[in-house]
C-alpha cells in the first residue's frame, strides 16, 4: 500500500458535440460515439498506441450486445489493445462516477493514468421484444421435443409482436423523471419564470463559451456537428414563455421543453493522471479531483424528491473537507431540469429542511448565482445521460485552470433511482 494518497490530476477532456435525438447522430451507436470520443482524446494528448492504466465508461441505455461496451470501444480506438476497460452504470451519475473511480485508483497508486467517460444514445435505443414473446422464445429455445416446441409456439399472440421501447420511467413509481421533477417543483414552489431565466442563462453562457473558443480543446466535431445542436443562442425569455408545459398538471405546471433537457445523443471522456505522469508526458494539470460523495434518497415511500440526492450528498462532502457551500469559485449543478437546480439551491437555503432532512443546525445557505454553470449546462448542451459527467468534469477543470491556481469548484449530478454524485475539484 502507498504511504499516502495523492490527488488525481485532471489533464483534459474531449467530447463530441451533443446532438438532439433522431438528428445528426441518428445512425450512430454507443460504440461509434465512444470510440470517436476516445480517439479525439488520444489525438489531443498524443496517446496513440499507448496503454493507459484503465478506461472506465458506461451508458445508461445499453443494448445487451454491448455488454463490454467500453472494452470494445477501446479495442476499436487508437489506444493500445492492452488497455484494460470496464463498464459502469449509475444512471445520469455514470460519467462522474467513472471519474471518481479512476481518480481513486490513481490516488491509491494502483494506476498512473486513466480515462473516464460515458456515452448515450436516445436515437439508437435498445428496443426489446415484448416480454411475453421473450418468455415464449426462451421456452421455445429450451424445448426438447416437437410437442414442447408446438406448445411454446401456441402462446404467440399478434399483440406480442409490438416491441418494447425503453421509457424514461422510474420502475418502482411508474412516473417519468419529468413527472417526478414536477412534483418536486410544486413542493418547492418553483416558478415558471425563474426556470425560464435559468434556461436562458444556460444557452447564453454556452453560446458565449463557444464564441470565445472555450470549447476548442474540449470538443471534437463528429458527423458534421461542430456545436451542440440543442444550443439556441438567440432564444429569449419571451420565446421560452410561449412554450406549453409538458410535465405536471393544471395551474401549477411550469416545466416546458425549454426548461427541461431534451433526449440527446453524445459521448465524453476525461484524462486523469498522477502529477508525475502528466509531467513526464509534458501534459498540463488543469485541476485535481479532491473528493467525492454519493447519496441516495427514498423517492418511493420516503417523501423525498427523485432528484434530491445531491442535496444530501453535498453537506457530507463539505463537512469531510472542512468547507462551507460558499467556499467555491464555481458551481456545476447538472441541469436535468431548471426546476431541479432551483429546488436544490432552495433546499440548501431552507433552515427547516436542512435541519429535518439533512441534520444540519444551520442551513448551507445561498450561493453566488453568477458562479453557477458559467459555461452553460445540460439545458443548453443537451443531456446524453452517461456523457454528462465527463462534460462537466472537463468543463469545470478548464474553468478552474483558467481562473488560476487555488480555485475550487463543486459538481452536483442527480440520477435516476433517487441517487446523486457530487465532487470537489481544485486548481
Amino acid at each position: 500500500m502507498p504511504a499516502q494518497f495523492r490527488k488525481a490530476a485532471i489533464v483534459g477532456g474531449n467530447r463530441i458535440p451533443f446532438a438532439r435525438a433522431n438528428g445528426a447522430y441518428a445512425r450512430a451507436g454507443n460504440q461509434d460515439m465512444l470510440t470517436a470520443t476516445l480517439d479525439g482524446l488520444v489525438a489531443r494528448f498524443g496517446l496513440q498506441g499507448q496503454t493507459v492504466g484503465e478506461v472506465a465508461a458506461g451508458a445508461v441505455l445499453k443494448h445487451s450486445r454491448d455488454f463490454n461496451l467500453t472494452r470494445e470501444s477501446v479495442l476499436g480506438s487508437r489506444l493500445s489493445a492492452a488497455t484494460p476497460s470496464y463498464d459502469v452504470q449509475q444512471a445520469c451519475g455514470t460519467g462522474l462516477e467513472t471519474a471518481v473511480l479512476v481518480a481513486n485508483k490513481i490516488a491509491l497508486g494502483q494506476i498512473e493514468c486513466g480515462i473516464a467517460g460515458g456515452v448515450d444514445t436516445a436515437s439508437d435505443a435498445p428496443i426489446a421484444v415484448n416480454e411475453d414473446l421473450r418468455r415464449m422464445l426462451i421456452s421455445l429455445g429450451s424445448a426438447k421435443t416437437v410437442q414442447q416446441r408446438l406448445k411454446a409456439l401456441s402462446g404467440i399472440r399478434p399483440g406480442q409482436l409490438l416491441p418494447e421501447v425503453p421509457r424514461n420511467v422510474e420502475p418502482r413509481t411508474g412516473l417519468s423523471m419529468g413527472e417526478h421533477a414536477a412534483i418536486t417543483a410544486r413542493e418547492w414552489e418553483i416558478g415558471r419564470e425563474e426556470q425560464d431565466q435559468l434556461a436562458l442563462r444556460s444557452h447564453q453562457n454556452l453560446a458565449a463559451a463557444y464564441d470565445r473558443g472555450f470549447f476548442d480543446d474540449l470538443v471534437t466535431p463528429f458527423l458534421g456537428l461542430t456545436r451542440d445542436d440543442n444550443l439556441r443562442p438567440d432564444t429569449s425569455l419571451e420565446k421560452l414563455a410561449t412554450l406549453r408545459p409538458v410535465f405536471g398538471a393544471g395551474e401549477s405546471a411550469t416545466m416546458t421543453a425549454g426548461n427541461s433537457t431534451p433526449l440527446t445523443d453524445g459521448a465524453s471522456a476525461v484524462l486523469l493522471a498522477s502529477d508525475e505522469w502528466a509531467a513526464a508526458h509534458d501534459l498540463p494539470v488543469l485541476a485535481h479531483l479532491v473528493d467525492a460523495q454519493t447519496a441516495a434518497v427514498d423517492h418511493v415511500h420516503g417523501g423525498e424528491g427523485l432528484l434530491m440526492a445531491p442535496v444530501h450528498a453535498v453537506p457530507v462532502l463539505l463537512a469531510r473537507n472542512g468547507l462551507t457551500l460558499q467556499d467555491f469559485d464555481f458551481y456545476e449543478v447538472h441541469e436535468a431540469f431548471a426546476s431541479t437546480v432551483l429546488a436544490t439551491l432552495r433546499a440548501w437555503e431552507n433552515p427547516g429542511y436542512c435541519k429535518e432532512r439533512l441534520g444540519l443546525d444551520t442551513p448551507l445557505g445561498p450561493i453566488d448565482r453568477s458562479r453557477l454553470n458559467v459555461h452553460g449546462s445540460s439545458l443548453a448542451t443537451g443531456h446524453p445521460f452517461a456523457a454528462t459527467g465527463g462534460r462537466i468534469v472537463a468543463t469545470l477543470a478548464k474553468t478552474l485552470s483558467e481562473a488560476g491556481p487555488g480555485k475550487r469548484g463543486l459538481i452536483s449530478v442527480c440520477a435516476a433511482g433517487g441517487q446523486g454524485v457530487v465532487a470537489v475539484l481544485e486548481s
Partner: protein
Amino acid sequence: MVRTVLSETPALPALFARATLSARGRGGDLPDTRLAREGVVADPAQLAGYARVCRFPLGDTLPVTFPHLLAFPLQVALMADRAFPLALPGLVHVRNRIEAVRSIGVGEALDLEVWAERFARHRGGATVDLRASVSAGGEEVWRGRSTYLARGAQAPEGAPDADVDVEVGVLDRIAAQWQVHDDAGRRYAKVSGDVNPIHLSGLTAKAFGFKRAIAHGMWVKARALAALSGRLPDAVDVDVAFRKPLLLPSTVLLATEQVEGGWDLAVRNASAGTEHLLGTVRARR
C-alpha cells in the same frame, strides 16, 4: 362440525360453473363444515408466475398473500356446495385480512383448513367471512379472513352487523402510478386460478352487472404489498378494505404512509380519485 379432507385441489372452472348453475334457491344458515387439505406444497412455476404478475421478488419464501391462493379453491368448493346459503356469482370481496405468524418457506408442506363464519347484516345485503388456516408441522403459520358481500341477501335473525371498514390515516403522498391494462384480470386469473368471469373480459363481466371487467381485489392487495418489499417484517398483519371496483383498464395511484408499527395504504383512480383499496400493514407483536 363436519371436517372433510380432500385428496386433491378442486378445479376452479368446474366449481364456478357448478356454483353458477346452482345459484338459485339458496338460503338458510352457514353450514358447519370445514374443508381441509394436507401436505400441500407450492408449485414453483405458479409461484414464479404469481410473483411476476404481482411484482413480488421471487425468492425462497412465499409472498405474504400467496397462501390465499392455496386455500382459495377450498373456499370456493365450500361456497359452490348447495349447502352454502349465498349464491357465488355476484359475491363481492369487500375486505381481506391476513395474519402472517412467520414467513413460509417455498418447499414447506402446508396443511390447509377453510370454513365460513360470521354471517352478518350489511346495509346492502349480508356478508360472510371465508376463513383459512395454514399450518406447518402442526403449528399455525398463516390465517386469512375474506369478507364477501352478497347484495340483497338477508342474514339470519340475530346476526351481527357487518364489519367491512378499515381505518387509515391521511394518505396524500403518491408512491407509484400503475397503468393497469385490460388484460390484468386474465393475467392474474392465469397465475391464481381465480377465473371468476367478472375479471376476464368486458363481455363476461357485463353478464354479472359490471360495466367492464374488474381487477381482482387480491391482485391489487398483492401489488400494493409488493411495492413495500423489503420494508415489512416476516410476522405481519395486513388488513384491506376493497372499496369501488377497479375497472379495466385504469390508471391508479398507490399512496403509502409510514405509521407507528407499519404502513397505511390507499389505491385510488388517478383522475377521479375513486378509492379502490384502503389498508393497513402492521408488524405483529
